[in-house]
């Protein structure tokens, strides 16, 4: 027979609930007698009379005294532990009919209702995003900041803190990521596999992951860094952390990096780390010379499509592949057929993009063979459109630029602006090809083809009435797993005569071949 007692400081229960509680204790295995009381003078003397109290204690009426008698020390000790735990447990917050609940308002409150949370996705107005991110990392959460307009002065300390605490801060202005198979922000539903992606560009990440899916591969993680990460000031903190994490990740076989060319010091560190990963790494520093990147373990590529293809090849254990940049055979005839439909005045490509990286990649590819391409976001600033609302020569417009999104949803969601511009380009007798991107996935419009088709048909009518044919060329970025379904969207657009290629790069090259073939 063993007997033990425990005082729990500053805990009050009324006598009725303590009597019920004592009953519960007596029902525990190996327990003969148990009593829980407030440690008043009276209660203590009752316990003494009952012979239950081994050690007399001074009265302390705000404390709760538990005494237990049982077979052996271990059952008695166990019962006391269990009793204390039961008393300190907060009652389940259920069963109070009609009591309104406060939905969580702060990250801390969110953690109260989701204690195992490990991630915060922040898409507040930009002015508040840094503070929310700061709270999240201080609470031990990894963070994705979708919000833009967060300054580099705010970004740097966040990323430094996160690095010191082995947390990831993706963004600010990180539009997309896929973590553990879950699409975050604007993201596609991509098959899981063994390719890990780190990308500084949102649409770049969507393009490579969608193409990996299209080419039969799959991804482990797709980490976004935000557009400032590879600048000297930030030093590529997130990209370097991403490479390190993918290096350590046993599921990741191939690492794929996507960014505009980083500043030279950051580039050096990134390539150094890529090299040291011991895994095959594919790098698309969009606009940089692949030769300056390529080494024995690093494959430099020129386009997002090549990046996806090389990664899938490596994932299948093959060589990364050789990318010539020439137009695939099947499109050479298509181009010829298109050329035959154009009149002598139709000379120019008009690219209308919703994805910034699609526009940028197109500018790079078109300028290789067509010379000057005008844009609101040109490669060379002398090629900036004076009036962004009016095209001249070959033009490629990023409609996701702040200029166009003031007071209006993003063009991946709201197609009105692009549709108006399609009609405007169709009116122009010099327009040969209207080049489009279509982005599927969560966050985007639920039926982009349905939004575009009336405008395309109207544009075709306008051109026909003027005795012309306008060629529509485009690509759809997405997967069959996306809520919009890639194959359905492609079929709808093909039905109205849009020529679709697998990738943005191919669409640009096809468009270039058409105007060059005239």
């Amino acid at each position, binding site marked *: 027979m063993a007997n033990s007692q425990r005082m729990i*400081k*500053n805990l*009050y*229960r*009324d006598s009725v*609930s303590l009597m019920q509680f004592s009953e519960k204790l007596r029902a525990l295995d190996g327990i003969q007698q148990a009593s829980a009381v407030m440690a008043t003078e009276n209660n203590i003397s009752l316990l003494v009379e009952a012979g239950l109290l081994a050690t007399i204690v001074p009265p302390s009426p*705000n404390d709760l005294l538990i005494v237990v008698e049982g077979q052996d020390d271990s059952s008695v000790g166990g019962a006391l532990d269990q009793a204390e735990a039961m008393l300190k447990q*907060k*009652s389940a917050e259920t069963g*109070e009919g*009609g*009591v*309104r*609940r*406060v*939905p969580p*308002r*702060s*990250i*801390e*409150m*969110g953690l*109260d209702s*989701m204690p*195992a*949370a*490990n*991630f*915060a*996705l*922040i*898409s*507040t107005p930009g002015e*508040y995003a840094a*503070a*929310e991110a*700061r*709270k*999240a990392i*201080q609470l*031990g*959460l*990894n963070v994705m900041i*979708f*919000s833009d307009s967060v300054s580099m002065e705010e970004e740097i300390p966040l990323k430094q803190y996160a690095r010191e*605490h082995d*947390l*990831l801060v993706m963004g600010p202005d990180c539009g997309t990521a896929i*973590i*553990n*198979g*879950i*699409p975050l*922000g604007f993201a596609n539903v991509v098959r899981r596999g063994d390719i890990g992606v780190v990308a500084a560009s949102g649409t770049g990440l969507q393009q490579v992951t969608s193409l990996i899916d299209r080419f039969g591969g799959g991804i482990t*993680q797709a980490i976004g860094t935000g557009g400032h990460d590879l600048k000297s000031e930030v030093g590529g903190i997130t990209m370097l*952390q991403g490479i*390190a*994490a993918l290096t350590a990740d046993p599921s990741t076989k191939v690492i794929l990096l996507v960014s505009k060319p980083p500043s030279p010091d950051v580039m050096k560190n990134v390539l150094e780390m890529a090299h040291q990963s011991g895994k095959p790494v594919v790098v698309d520093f969009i606009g940089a010379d692949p030769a300056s990147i390529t080494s024995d373990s690093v494959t430099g590529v020129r386009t997002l499509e090549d990046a996806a293809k090389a990664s899938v090849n490596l994932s299948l254990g093959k060589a990364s592949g050789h990318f010539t940049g020439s137009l695939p055979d099947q499109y050479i005839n298509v181009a010829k057929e298109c050329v035959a439909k154009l009149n002598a005045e139709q000379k120019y490509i008009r690219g209308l993009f919703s994805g910034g990286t699609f526009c940028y990649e197109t500018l790079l590819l078109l300028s290789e063979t067509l010379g000057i391409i005008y844009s609101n976001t040109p490669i060379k600033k002398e090629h900036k459109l004076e009036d962004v609302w009016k095209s001249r020569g070959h033009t490629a417009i990023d409609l996701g630029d702040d200029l166009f999104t003031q007071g209006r949803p993003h063009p991946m969601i709201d197609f009105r602006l692009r549709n108006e511009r399609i009609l405007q380009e169709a009116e122009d007798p010099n327009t040969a090809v209207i080049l489009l991107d279509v982005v599927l996935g*969560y*966050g985007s419009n639920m039926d982009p083809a349905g939004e575009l088709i009336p405008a395309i048909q109207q544009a075709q009518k306008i051109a026909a009435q003027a005795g012309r044919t306008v060629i529509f060329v485009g690509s759809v970025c997405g997967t069959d797993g996306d809520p919009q379904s890639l194959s359905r969207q492609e079929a709808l657009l093909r039905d109205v005569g849009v020529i679709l290629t697998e990738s943005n790069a191919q669409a640009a090259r096809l468009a270039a071949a058409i105007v060059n073939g005239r």
Partner: protein
Amino acid sequence: MVNKLFEQDLQVINIGLSSFADSIQQTGGKATHLDWRPPASGDREIGMSLALLVNAPEVEDANRIAHERFLSAQPILMGVEQARKAIPNLSERTLLHAGPPIEWDRMCGPTLGAIIGAILYEGWAGDQESARQLAASGEITFAPCHHFGAVGPMSGVISPSMPVWIIKNQERGNVSFSNLNEGLGKVLRFGANDPSVLERLKWMETVLGPAMNAAVQQLGGIELRSIIAQALHMGDECHNRNAAASSLLFKKLTPALLRTEVPQKDIASVLEFIAGNDHFFLNLSMACCKAMLDAGHGVEHSTLVTAMARNGVEFGIRMSGAGNQWFTAPAPMVDGLFFPGYTSTDAAPDLGDSAITETAGIGGFAMGAAPAIVQFVGGTPQDAIAYTREMYHITMGSNGGFTLPPLNFDGAPAGIDARKVVDTGIAPVINTGIAHKDAGVGQVGAGITHAPLECFNKAVQSKIL
């Protein structure tokens, strides 16, 4: 940790666009979407000051210490003495008042009336007009009760001759004080100062005070927390409703008083007086809370709120790590029910030190245990529970010593964290009486109000790290 994330289920707290939470859930992930609004009433700079304090180790450590000192306090009623003897450093010609500091010419009606009454009671002036002149002359020092470890309901005026309850926290030795409750109707704390008021004050000084002291000495002190704990199980929240606690106190005092040398006729009048006032315990509830909170005050870096008090013009709070600073905002109006013949246009803004009870986790915070109280705002018992539940989100924990039957005997939400108030925008709820804006009319209603968020915004910005 980054790699650990890859091995775990992704569980996302979503702040901003709710559609992002939907898509996470549709693809098999877990997401909790916040009902987010810009913290700190949208002030970006304060929002960043707050962010730097969230889960900051220095603050967390300090709060653990402050909260533990607050919760483990054991306030004992030690006796009753005149303020001039009981309260250290209280010089003659000093009058204490409720709330944060305020000058004579800015005081609200009830406080003005109470100050004049106190001057007359002390005999410092012979009539209203000369009392007024004396108050304006600068010869009287006005100071918050809180600066002297004291608390007083409504105008909270304490003068040197008044008897005060003396409460000592056995755990840390700190001492707090409160005046004795005068009852309802024409009373000094609402600014009344006619001869009947002064006569009652005199009786309290010469009869009630000594009798109470004798009874308390007879009992060897009275444990206050256990009275509050029991009263919370009897429908009190010990701010706006003290019926049960006053009865429990009466039960203790009566036999003790009969064993003292106090003359029989005085015992009768004293017991009649106490029995006729359901709020008799309020001042003890307040002083008990004050003793508990003072124990948690003065911990460097701590964001524990240790006082909320109003002077009828401003609402002020104090924070453990911010020393003797007050963080103030205009006093809010009270949303409530008015006694027959009065309306909201008669009301003074929120007044009194009694919000010390909410600061300590009872009063409005324990409304769930006092369903009768919500009738003042036309609410239901469910509303009362909801008020209490909401307060858990802005407190550091709960007080296992003050349990609430309708909430399955969970401890009352206790220990306001200024950070959480600013982050959530949830303002502490306060049950309170409503004073007439003019001196001396008295209580005209009761209801519910909320502490202004501005006070907490200022506290968070006060560079406590």
